[in-house]
């Protein structure tokens, strides 16, 4: 009984169907996200992995089915309440022109603000904490537009962290970063998970990085779920063939110890 409560997930999709025009992007999809883990959604281009994340994030309307957050339908909760429980980082967001880093990170506090309480000491503290955890205190007074790609992505993560939620959804946070910065970012996500006990869901492209950092993988193919589980369970030669039409050997990652995909 206790186990059942402990393993109860905070984010679930029940039979969701999403479509653009006639084509179903996701069809009758059900899924739950394990709590306190880093979950990575993998799959070939246009398999619906970003759509799935956006459906979880209430950014895409569902044709049928529902998404529940902490046991309640996400559409039946106030958007502001949802924002206090779940932070979302969309793919390549645009920042307001001329904004400073501290100001942008501060926007993450919006779900806690109201007309009479526009900024509190708590907000200031959350922003400082987020800047510290992401290691960008030195950039706080710089203009966002003047930063490098890797720094910008840290700022966005800091904004999501300032939102002070137990759940974070990130859509391709490593796109357009070089390998060093990709690894830095994934290390940062791992730290967020460990230090804040956050549940993190990210869409990633790189299978080997996903295998290294994820606790839980969701493998998709053309709008359907192919396999979920630990990297060892999901990353197999048969699954790589099925999902990506890729002939590959799976060997043991000499550093991380997990599976490593070597295309033939």
């Amino acid at each position, binding site marked *: 009984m206790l186990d059942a409560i402990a393993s109860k997930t905070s984010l679930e999709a029940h039979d969701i169907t999403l479509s653009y025009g006639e084509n179903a992007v996701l069809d009758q999809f059900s899924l739950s996200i394990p709590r306190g883990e880093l979950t990575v959604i993998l799959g070939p281009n246009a398999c619906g992995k970003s759509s799935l994340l956006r459906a979880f994030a209430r950014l895409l309307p569902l044709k049928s089915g529902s998404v529940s957050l902490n046991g309640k339908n996400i559409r039946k909760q106030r*958007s502001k309440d949802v924002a206090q429980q779940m932070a979302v980082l969309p793919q390549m967001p645009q920042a307001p022109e*001329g904004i400073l880093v501290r100001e942008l990170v501060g926007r993450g506090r919006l779900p806690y603000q109201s007309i*009479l309480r526009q900024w509190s000491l708590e907000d200031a503290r959350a922003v400082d904490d987020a800047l510290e955890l992401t290691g960008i205190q030195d950039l706080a007074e710089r203009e966002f537009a003047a930063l490098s790609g890797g720094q910008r992505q840290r700022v966005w993560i800091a904004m999501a962290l300032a939102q002070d939620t137990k759940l974070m959804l990130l859509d391709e946070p490593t796109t357009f970063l070089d390998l060093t910065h990709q690894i830095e970012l994934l290390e940062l996500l791992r730290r967020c998970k460990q230090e804040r006990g956050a549940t993190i869901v990210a869409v990633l492209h790189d299978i080997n990085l996903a295998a290294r950092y994820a606790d839980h993988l969701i493998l998709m193919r053309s709008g359907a779920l192919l396999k979920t589980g630990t990297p060892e369970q999901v990353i197999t030669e048969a699954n790589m063939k099925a999902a990506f039409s890729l002939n590959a050997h799976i060997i043991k990652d000499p550093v991380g110890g997990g599976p490593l995909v070597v295309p033939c």
Partner: protein
Amino acid sequence: MSASVWVLRSAGNMFSFRVRQRSLFVIATLGAIVACFALLFLTVGSYQLGLHGLWKALTLKADIYAQVVVFDVRLPRLLSAICVGALLAMSGAVFQSLFRNPLASPDILGFNAGAASGALASILFGGGTTYLVGSAIAGGLAAAALVLWLSWQNGLILNRMILMGLCVGFALVALSDLLMSKLDIELASEAAKWLIGSLASVSPAQMWLAIGATVVFFPAAWFLQMWLDALQLDDDVATSLGLQLKALRLANVILGVSMAAIGVAVAGPLPFVAFIGGPLAQRLLRTASYSMGASALLGAFIVLVSDFLSRNDYLFLHLPTGVFTAFIGAPYLIWHLKKQSRGPLS
């Protein structure tokens, strides 16, 4: 280097606000400049008063002539100029935040031209000042709706909106000319001046309207600033942060059009005032937000200076106020466009 911030709050955290020292400094300085210029405005003119003379007039100890000059001529014009400037500039800041672009101000987007056509129609059909404001707001909203509808294609396309705004603006200026040709000659010459933007014949009713609107809208806009700033974010980010985008946008469009339309109903479509306040405030405050306080003061200052020049005609023969706001605004727009590395029209 570090942006110092104070948190102002009441016991129990009922109220809690952030005050940036830089904003406070800039706004206080702008306020002082406007106040000094207001004194100049009240004292200098064809009837020279001097500070002492002004004081005597204000305390009702001067002769009747000085009191008429101060209370019936200069003070109403001063207050109208300040309020109209503030209203137009705040309206500009609202739309610039909403559309995330400094070019998206109601004068450039044709909303002011719509308000002017509405006001003219009301004069033509004998509505008088009672219906003037209502029809100006209706005209402004109609122009806004038309521009938005024309530039909508699975969402708002900004470049298209600016071009459509310019087109609708031109069409509305033509419409205004047509309406003018139907007016009798005396009304038409008065209306012609008003169409360029003029504070020369502001009635007491119009003055009180401008003051009332500023008293209502300035605090409203100041409180709403937070959401305007938030609306500058990406749609997806803003939605994720729990904002109700549709409702907030609609509320702000109505607020912005109302402020612009009232400004236009009082002083005509003064060019560039709405455009200039927000971006200049942004630059001075070194922040992303189009600060309402600083924008309002900058707008007030520009209209005040323009009207001072118009009233005292040092150089020209009684040119309307709008000519001078255009003299100040147009070079700023050109400079701004040249400076913008990635032009929204490119």
